[in-house]
């Protein structure tokens, strides 16, 4: 019963954090499955991927209906990130994993610092003063309904080439270290391309679902998915994203950024320990 509750609870955490922060949640699930349940790493990764898909598929429809998912941008970025992730998986063979982990941690600490200096800005509120319906002309420009401000927010995607470059590096690193790129894609979209944090996290959540699916199918066909654990976690994820995530609908952009910084620091410390120990 305790095991059931732990699995269910970790599913709920992923169900809440996935749509909220635009991350997959592998960094939460895999350590729990390998360290606490002593599950082999391949089975843990496969089970984690199934959970990530559950988190994405349950959140994407409501985000689409609110206009938060920028599908055009998601598809364009994903093509570039996925290509770089493949290159990254080859580079792993020639580079020292400990050094990559330390570099990864340093990059995350810098990103956290950038977010901290930027966290006082409310994206939606600033965009309301900056753009209106007539400014939305670019191929990736979009609008969404902000439930907290109870109005439509229009945004323009700027410096996309830089975001693509950072997403490419994120793909390269995720290919090398086997983690999702959500923690890099969201800051790149938000800080560089000035996409509001809510739209950036929703787009990233849509992208991680696609990435996880490709991997999960292969792992499933190889027999690595643990049906029992996956099912319990899926239950938790759906409960988390459908019931609990509704409470976060009206969370402000500044608060969302602060939660994101805490998560970035958590991953950065994990990576630093991996590199040093």
């Amino acid at each position, binding site marked *: 019963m305790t095991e059931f509750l732990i699995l269910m609870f970790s599913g709920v955490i992923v169900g809440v954090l996935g749509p909220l922060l635009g991350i997959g949640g592998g960094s939460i699930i895999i350590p729990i499955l390998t360290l606490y349940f002593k599950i082999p790493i391949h089975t843990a990764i496969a089970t984690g*991927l*199934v959970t990530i*898909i*559950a988190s*994405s*598929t*349950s959140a*994407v*429809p409501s985000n*689409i*209906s609110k206009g938060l*998912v920028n*599908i*055009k941008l998601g*598809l*364009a970025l*994903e*093509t570039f990130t*996925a*290509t770089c*992730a*493949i290159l990254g*998986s080859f580079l792993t063979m020639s580079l020292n994993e400990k050094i990559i982990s330390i570099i990864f941690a340093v990059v995350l600490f810098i990103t956290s610092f950038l977010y901290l200096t930027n966290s006082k800005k409310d994206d939606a509120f600033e965009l309301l003063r900056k753009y209106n319906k007539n400014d939305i002309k670019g191929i990736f420009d979009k609008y969404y309904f902000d439930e907290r401000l109870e109005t439509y927010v229009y945004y323009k995607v700027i410096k996309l080439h830089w975001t693509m470059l950072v997403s490419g590096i994120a793909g390269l690193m995720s290919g090398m270290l086997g983690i999702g790129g959500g923690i890099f894609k969201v800051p790149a979209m938000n800080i560089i391309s000035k996409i509001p944090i809510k739209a950036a996290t929703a787009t990233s959540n849509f992208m991680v*679902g*696609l*990435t*996880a*699916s*490709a*991997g*999960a*199918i*292969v792992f*499933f*066909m*190889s027999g690595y*998915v643990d*049906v*029992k654990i*996956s*099912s319990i976690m*899926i*239950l938790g994820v*759906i409960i988390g994203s459908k019931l609990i995530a509704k409470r976060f609908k009206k969370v402000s952009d500044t608060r969302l950024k602060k939660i994101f910084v805490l998560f970035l620091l958590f991953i950065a410390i994990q990576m630093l320990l991996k590199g040093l120990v």
Partner: protein
Amino acid sequence: MKRAEKSMSVIYRVSTWLSLSLIIIATIEFIISGHTFLKKEIKTVNIISEMLSGNYYATYLAAIIILIFSPVISLFSMLITFILERKWRYSLLVFLLIVIMSIGAFLKNG
């Protein structure tokens, strides 16, 4: 784009609720059967017949299969929508993404 978004949204909603329902049904079957979780070798083609005969393991398996294939199905549905709308640039982008993801998946397996 609206049609593509709608098709994707419908696929995701259906797959989420279908897998959730199957997991709940399987859990009820599991509780009734006496709390023994035995992994059985089931061929994919036999899943439906096994499910109907009350094999909860097959029901769990079906729920997971539906879930993990839904993003790929949604990509194909987007590809079809873009082709029907003659939006060749987006069709090419989605096709390219499917190809890259397939290459990546099979390389991971290797």
